[in-house]
């Protein structure tokens, strides 16, 4: 194993480790698509919080291709896929306690969602 030396510290801090990867992957969704977040309950690692599961959202931005934490946390490879900024109305997430004009944005991977109908 390499040892992080004092000389390398400024380089590490300045460079970091981007989770964005430069590989071609077909995006499953386009900006403007309506999506439903899957209702999954893995006992393993996921970055899909419970409060968005089963909810209806709208794709607002395609961030590009990123590695998938659900796989990386378990040594299952990087599993690169598109990551999107997805918008949910506050009332979709929380019902009547929320105001209709408020919203929430969260970043979700291709695997987390299915294409949905929206009236």
């Amino acid at each position, binding site marked *: *194993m*390499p*040892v*992080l030396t004092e000389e*390398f*510290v400024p380089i*590490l801090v300045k460079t970091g*480790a981007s989770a964005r990867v430069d590989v071609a992957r077909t995006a499953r969704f386009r900006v403007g698509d309506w999506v439903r977040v899957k209702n999954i*309950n*893995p*006992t*393993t*690692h*996921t970055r899909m*919080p*419970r*409060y968005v599961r089963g909810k209806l959202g709208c794709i607002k931005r395609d961030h590009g291709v990123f590695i998938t*934490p659900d796989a*990386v*946390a*378990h040594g299952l490879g990087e599993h690169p896929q598109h990551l999107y900024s997805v918008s949910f109305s506050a009332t979709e*997430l*929380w019902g009547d306690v929320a105001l209709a004009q408020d919203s929430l944005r969260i970043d979700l991977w291709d695997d987390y969602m299915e294409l949905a109908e929206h009236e």
Partner: protein
Amino acid sequence: MNSIHDLGGMHGLGPVLQDPNEVLFRHDWERRIFGLFFAAFGGGHFNIDEFRHAVERMEPVHYLTSSYYEHWVHGIESLLIAKGVIGQDELAARMLSLKGAA
């Protein structure tokens, strides 16, 4: 996993408390564990997702009643033990000897 770390939307966890006199590190051990995280991460002993998952596996009551950097201690320690970098007994023995020396 559906663990205590997934806090969004929960009730009853109290008010958001701001401390205008807050310091970045309240104890020297917080500084050291912050540095140790980088050293272990930069040395390739684990990745950030393994680290987050290790923190998620904390016992829920302990998660809620311990500080942020205690989560880091737990995450780093449990991963280094799981990966065989250090031994659980080795750590316990070293704590005893340090206690004796103090």
